[in-house]
């Protein structure tokens, strides 16, 4: 009897050891791969952040439809940074210390990106980042091998903007920019980029974003009689600029604005017709991958993808998933190697590879496209190879 008890006890110990030791890898394999995303779901950039979340959702469904990655499901943990730098930094700490994420994605505002990146520097992890255009972020992360940046930097934006203006045949520019970091950095780089494209800035002024009355500024710009008026500010300033330009009969050959997103309802505003804009993507993009994305987005969420943040976020998660699949592991060094080898052509409509930029090691997209509001639609007018319509130049504002 005693022998039986000893044998049974030994058997149980062996089984327990098997489960505790040999069973451990099997358990680990069932655990999901955790990807953390820091995006602004509320705050001034809330709508763009929500579009990003929808882009991630579409990508995640696609990834998890089969076996997931490396035989494991992918779990996406989304944190709301509210457009607030300390909240973004705290979100990262939560993601690495409590959720134990394998990769960090997301990002929109430059100020939040600085706060998050400062934390990632202390706990390096693959940071596949969609947001931030301010060059100061790039300088801050110049030596970071683990930082992969998808969005063009401010100087890429400037190069695209002045390249497009040059293509119209314009010679002179009037530039008005908001006096915060966004407008100031655009203003600082303007003269050099304009010159390099054979353009002259004949008027330059700044204003406070949120100002309800821009008529004095527009009257000054009108007196400069430039071919193109470039307006660098946020969505809230676009409406007074568009309506008050009509009121002071300011009719340059083209008004070009580049807010990060456009106000809700702008497509229905008659004064917005023929305004030009610079962006990474529009819903009018005719690339097949873009069309597929747009259709899925519409079916899933019963709305149109209005900004480029949805397709950019989708691209973000899909390319990270591809890198994990190729690497066969979530080890950061292996992922960095595979991210560098990324070659992807998705809904943005142009190939994505990561190359060196002026300061950074891994830069994704470098070109914007130009569109013109024509009867409520953002018609792509530049570059010619992807344009979906003809630029109305001079724009018939006065009619």
């Amino acid at each position, binding site marked *: 009897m005693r022998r039986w008890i000893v044998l049974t006890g030994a058997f149980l110990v062996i089984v327990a050891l098997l489960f505790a030791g040999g069973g451990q890898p099997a358990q680990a394999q069932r655990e999901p791969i955790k990807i953390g995303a820091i995006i602004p779901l*509320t*705050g*001034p*950039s*809330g*709508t763009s952040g*929500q579009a990003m979340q929808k882009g991630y959702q579409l990508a995640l469904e696609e990834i998890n439809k089969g076996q997931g990655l490396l035989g494991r499901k992918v779990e996406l943990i989304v944190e709301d940074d509210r*457009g607030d730098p300390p909240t973004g930094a705290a979100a990262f700490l939560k993601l690495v210390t409590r959720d134990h994420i394998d990769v960090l994605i997301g990002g929109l505002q430059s100020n939040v990106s600085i706060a998050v990146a400062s934390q990632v520097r202390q706990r390096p992890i693959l940071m596949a980042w969609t947001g931030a255009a301010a060059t100061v972020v790039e300088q801050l992360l110049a030596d970071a091998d683990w930082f992969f940046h998808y969005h063009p930097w401010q100087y890429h934006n400037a190069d695209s903007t002045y390249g497009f203006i040059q293509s119209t045949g314009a010679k002179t520019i009037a530039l*008005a920019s908001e*006096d915060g970091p966004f407008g100031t950095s655009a203003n600082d780089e303007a003269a050099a980029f304009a010159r390099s494209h054979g353009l002259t800035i004949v008027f330059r*002024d*700044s*204003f*406070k974003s*949120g*100002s*309800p*009355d*821009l*008529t*004095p*500024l527009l*009257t*000054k710009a009108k007196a400069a009689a430039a071919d193109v008026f470039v307006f660098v500010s946020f*969505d*809230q300033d676009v*409406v*007074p600029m*568009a*309506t*008050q*330009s*009509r*009121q*002071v*009969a300011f009719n340059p050959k083209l008004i070009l604005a580049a807010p990060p*997103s456009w*106000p*809700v*309802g*702008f497509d*229905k*505003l*008659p*004064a917005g017709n023929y305004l030009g804009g610079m962006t990474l993507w529009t819903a009018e993009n005719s690339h097949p991958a873009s069309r597929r994305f747009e259709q899925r987005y519409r079916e899933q969420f019963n709305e149109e993808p209005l900004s480029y943040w949805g397709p950019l976020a989708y691209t973000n998660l899909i390319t990270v998933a591809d890198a994990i699949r190729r690497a066969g592991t979530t080890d950061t060094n292996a992922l960095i190697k595979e991210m560098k080898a990324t070659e992807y052509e998705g809904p943005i409509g142009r190939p994505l590879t990561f190359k060196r930029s002026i300061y950074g090691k891994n830069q994704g997209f470098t070109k914007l496209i130009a569109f013109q509001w024509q009867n409520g639609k953002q018609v792509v007018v530049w570059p010619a190879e992807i344009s979906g319509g003809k630029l109305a130049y001079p724009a018939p504002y006065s009619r």
Partner: protein
Amino acid sequence: MAGRDLGREARVSRTVQSLDAVRLTVSDATRDREAAIETFVQMLIFGILRSGLYSLTSVGLALSVGVIGIINFAHGEFLMLGAYLGYWLFVSYGIDPLAAIPIAAIALFALGGALYRLGIQRVLRAPELNQMLLTFGISIFLQNLAIILWTGDPRTAAISYKARAVTLGAFTVGFPQLLVFALAMALTLSLYAVLGRSRIGKAMRAVAQNRLGASLLGIDVDRIYLLAFGLSAALAGTAGMMIALQLSASPFIGLLYTLKAFSIIVIAGLGNINGVISASLVLGLSEAFVEFYVPQGGGWSEGVFFVLILAVLLVRPRGLFR
């Protein structure tokens, strides 16, 4: 002989040319002067027009300061809610913001009254710091509520006449701005008339001057406070409706207008409701001229109200129009 004639002709022609040059220079200078005067008058018009909305925004704040003695930091958020109401009524039911003004006034009056009963009334005898903290808290609450409900993106009502202009001789004026100015002035002057002539207005003035004395005369002070706070919110809501008419609704517009209204009531003299129109003109004109005549003036103009507050507080603390 012929050579001498030719020489004289050449001299005459040179003289004529130089006279023409002088005439051209003189006419250029005259044209420049005329253009400068024209621009000056145009800026004057722009400044006057923007003062209309400023006075409507500020008169409500002046009312709550003057009658109740409380500085309401949530005043701009009432304006923001009015702007959203204007936007949603237009988008959902096609109601023009002008036609929706009574709806905004009633809705914001009710909200102001409720907030008075629930919060303001309880801190009236508390230290001023408590009052300020309460209204500041309400401001943050309302702003975040708007962000949660409608996100942070500006929303613009595509009203057909939003960009329309009216030409008055050599000058161009935005039609919505002109409309807003006329309405704002009509409402502000009506409020002056109500305060000056009606029974309720006289009661408000009595309470503003001496709360205890007024209550001894049989005036229901608490009811007057409720009315004044509700009316203040209704005026802000109406101003918000006018924002929806001209610009966009966004959760963040409130602070800017609270600051402007605050500087106007300081310029007018705290509690001096009658000085609001003049003080609004001072601010509107200062901003327009700084924006146009000072290099990079657009950036400076929003600081004008800080300069004006400082100058008034240092030089004439009781206000310029008291």
